[in-house]
C-alpha cells in the first residue's frame, strides 16, 4: 500500500470563546491515499468543518489555535513548514470544491475571468509562463472535462446566468484547474436538488477516479457517503469514533454512535423506527470526561469515564469504544 498523501495525526484544536477555552478537535487522525475516496461524516457542530479548515490552513487565529498534532502532506508537515511554502500548495497540489454554488462565485466577474485568474496566480507562484490565450485554453479544457455544454459560451458567462447545477460544475472545474493531487469536497451536492445531486456526484466520482486523486469529502449525508466513498471516518464531538472501509462500516457499524446514526437515516424500505439519539452534542468548553459520547450512549458503563481505546474490529476497521474486542479475540 502506498504512503498516505494526507496524514493528519493527533490533531487538537482549541477555540477561545468569551474568555474560555474549548477543545473543538481532540486528537483527530485520518489518512487519505492517492486514488482513495475518503469521507469524514458527522452531524452539525461535530468539528468536521474545523478539520477541513485546519487542513486547508484557513482557520482564523485567534480564536482558533492548534494545540497538538501534525498535518502531513506528501511527507512534509504543513503546520511546521514556512508559510510561503504552504501557500504555494493551496489551490495547486491541494484544492477544494466549495459547498455553496450560489455564493462561492463572484457575481461581477465572468466565469472565464475567475478561472483564468486562478491559473494566473498559480502560474506566478510556480514560475510557469503562460499567456492569456494559454490560460483560456486550459479553462475551456477543464470546463469540457466537467461535461459543461458549450464551454466557449460559459467562459464569457456571468454566474447569475447559470443554474445551480452548472455553477456546481464550475466549482469542480475551479478545483481541478491546477491539477491537484488532493481534492477536498465540502458537502458535495447538498445544496442541490436530489436529481441534480445524483448527476454531480457521479461526475465528481468519475473525475477523481480518472485522475486517481486523493479525495476527502466532508458531509453529514450518510447516503452520499455510501455512494461516493470507499473509506469512512465518523466524527462525533471533535473525535473520530470509528473508521473503516465503507462496506464494512455500513454492514457492521461498531461504535454505538455510528450504529445510532445509521439507524436514524430514514429508509426507502419504509422500515424506519425513528428512535433518534437522546440529548444533544456536548458543550466543548466542558466536555464529558472519557468518551465524549458517554452521556448519550445507551450502552454506557463505568469504563466509559476513561478515554476509550482504538479497537481494531476488522480489516482496517477501528472503533473507539470500550465495548469492542479486537477482531482476533472475537474470531
Amino acid at each position, binding site marked *: 500500500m502506498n504512503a498516505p498523501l494526507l496524514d493528519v495525526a493527533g490533531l487538537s484544536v482549541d477555540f477561545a470563546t468569551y474568555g474560555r477555552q474549548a477543545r473543538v478537535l481532540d486528537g483527530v487522525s485520518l489518512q487519505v491515499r492517492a486514488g482513495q475516496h475518503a469521507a469524514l461524516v458527522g452531524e452539525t457542530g461535530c468539528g468536521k468543518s474545523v478539520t477541513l479548515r485546519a487542513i486547508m490552513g484557513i482557520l482564523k487565529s485567534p480564536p482558533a489555535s492548534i494545540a497538538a498534532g501534525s498535518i502531513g502532506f506528501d511527507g512534509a508537515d504543513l503546520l511546521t513548514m514556512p508559510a510561503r511554502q504552504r501557500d504555494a500548495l493551496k489551490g495547486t497540489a491541494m484544492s477544494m470544491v466549495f459547498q455553496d454554488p450560489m455564493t462561492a462565485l463572484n457575481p461581477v466577474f465572468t466565469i472565464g475571468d475567475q478561472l483564468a485568474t486562478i491559473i494566473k496566480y498559480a502560474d506566478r507562484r510556480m514560475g510557469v509562463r503562460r499567456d492569456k490565450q494559454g490560460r483560456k485554453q486550459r479553462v475551456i479544457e477543464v470546463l469540457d472535462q466537467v461535461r459543461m455544454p458549450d464551454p466557449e459560451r460559459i467562459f464569457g458567462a456571468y454566474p447569475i446566468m447559470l443554474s*445551480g447545477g452548472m455553477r456546481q460544475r464550475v466549482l469542480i472545474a475551479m478545483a481541478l484547474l491546477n491539477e491537484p493531487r488532493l481534492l477536498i469536497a465540502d458537502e458535495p451536492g447538498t445544496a442541490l436538488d*436530489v436529481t441534480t445531486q*445524483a*448527476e454531480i456526484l457521479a461526475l465528481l466520482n468519475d473525475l477523481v477516479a480518472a485522475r486517481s486523486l486523493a479525495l476527502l469529502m466532508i458531509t453529514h449525508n450518510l447516503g452520499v457517503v455510501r455512494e461516493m466513498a470507499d473509506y469512512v471516518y465518523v466524527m462525533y464531538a471533535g473525535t473520530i469514533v470509528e473508521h473503516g472501509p465503507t462496506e464494512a462500516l455500513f454492514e457492521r457499524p461498531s461504535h454505538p454512535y455510528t450504529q445510532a446514526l445509521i439507524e*436514524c437515516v430514514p*429508509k426507502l424500505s419504509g422500515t424506519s423506527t425513528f*428512535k433518534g439519539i437522546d440529548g444533544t452534542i456536548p458543550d466543548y468548553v466542558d466536555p464529558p470526561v472519557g468518551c465524549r459520547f458517554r452521556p448519550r450512549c445507551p450502552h454506557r458503563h463505568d469504563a466509559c469515564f476513561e478515554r476509550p481505546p482504538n479497537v481494531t474490529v476488522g480489516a482496517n476497521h477501528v472503533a473507539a469504544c470500550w465495548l469492542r474486542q479486537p477482531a482476533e479475540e472475537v474470531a
Partner: protein
Amino acid sequence: MIEAPLLEVSGLTKHFPIRGGIIQQRVGAVRAVNDVSFAIRKGEVFGLAGESGSGKSTIARMVVGLYRPTAGTVHFDGSDVSGLIGGRDYRKQVQMVFQNPGSSLNPRRTIAQSVAVPLIFHDYPKAKIADRVAELLEMVELPRNFAIRYPHELSGGQKQRVAIARALAVEPRLIVLDEPTSALDVSVQAKIIDLLAGLAGELGLTFLFISHDLSLMRNFCSRVGILYLGRLAETGSTIDVFGSPAHPYTQALIGAVPVVSDEEAALKPSIPALSGEIPSPSRIPKGCSFHTRCPFAFEPCRQIDPEFTIVGQGHEARCHLLEERTATAATVPVSPVERSAHP
C-alpha cells in the same frame, strides 16, 4: 371514499406576476402552482414531495390562508375557505410548522411569549395561559423552565418542538408541516418525526407534510403526491407510489435518493439518470412539463399536456406512456417503464 375529506383542494393555481419597466407593469408570471387537486381524510398524513420550484411551499401557504389562490378552491370540513385570508374560525382549525426553526420563532421573545400568541388572539382566559403553556411544553417533551428562555438558548430540535407546541396551542385539526426537519440533523429529525407521529395518534391530528426527502416520506405518510413544476405528476398510497412508481419523474426521483443499505438500493427503480435541470417556473415547457428531461419522451409529450391515468386503486399519474399502455393493454402487454426490482 365513505367519509368526506377534511381538506379538499381542487384546481388550485397560483401565479405570481413578474413586474418590470418604469411603471412596474406586469411583464410575465411565475406559474408556481397549476391546477393541483388532492384530498386529505381525517387522521391521514398526506405528503407532497417535490424539488425546488415545484410549488410545494406555495400550496402550503394557500392551504393555511397566507396566499390567496389565483384560481381553484380550498374546502375545509365541507366549507369553502379559499377566500378567508383572516378567518378566525379557520385559523383555529389549521396551523403550520415552518422549515427553519431558527427564523420561525421571534428572537426577541421568550418561548412562553411565543407559545402564548395564539392563545391571546383566540380569547383564551388570561389566568389560564401560563398553565396552558406549561401543558403544551410538556406535550412536546420540553421541560417547563424553557418557558422563560429565548430561542438562541435552544438547539434546533428544541426550537422546532416549541414551534410544534405553538401550533398545537389552539387545538387545530389540520397541521401543515413545511419541511419541518430539513434543517435538522438526522438524529434530531428522527426524534421530531417520532414526536409528531405520537401527537397525531394522541390528538387525532391530520397532517399535510411537505418535503423533498422521499425516504422520510416513505416512512411517515400514508398517501403522497409528487409535484413537478407546480403540477401533480403522480398521487397514490405511499406503498403504491414507492412500490410501483408509474411516472418517469417519480422513478427518477426515487432512483436518485442516496441510501444506506443494499436492501434499499435494490428497491430503487433503474432508470437512466435525468439530464439537465428543472426549468424555471416562469418558463414552463409546452406539453408535458417534464418532457425536456424525460428519457422516454416521444412526440405527443412535446404537444399535449397529459391528463391523469388511473393505474391502480387511488393511484394515478399524468403520463402519455400510461395512456398508451391502458389503450393497448389488451394487445401489447409491454410496460414501457421497466423497473429492476418488484417488492
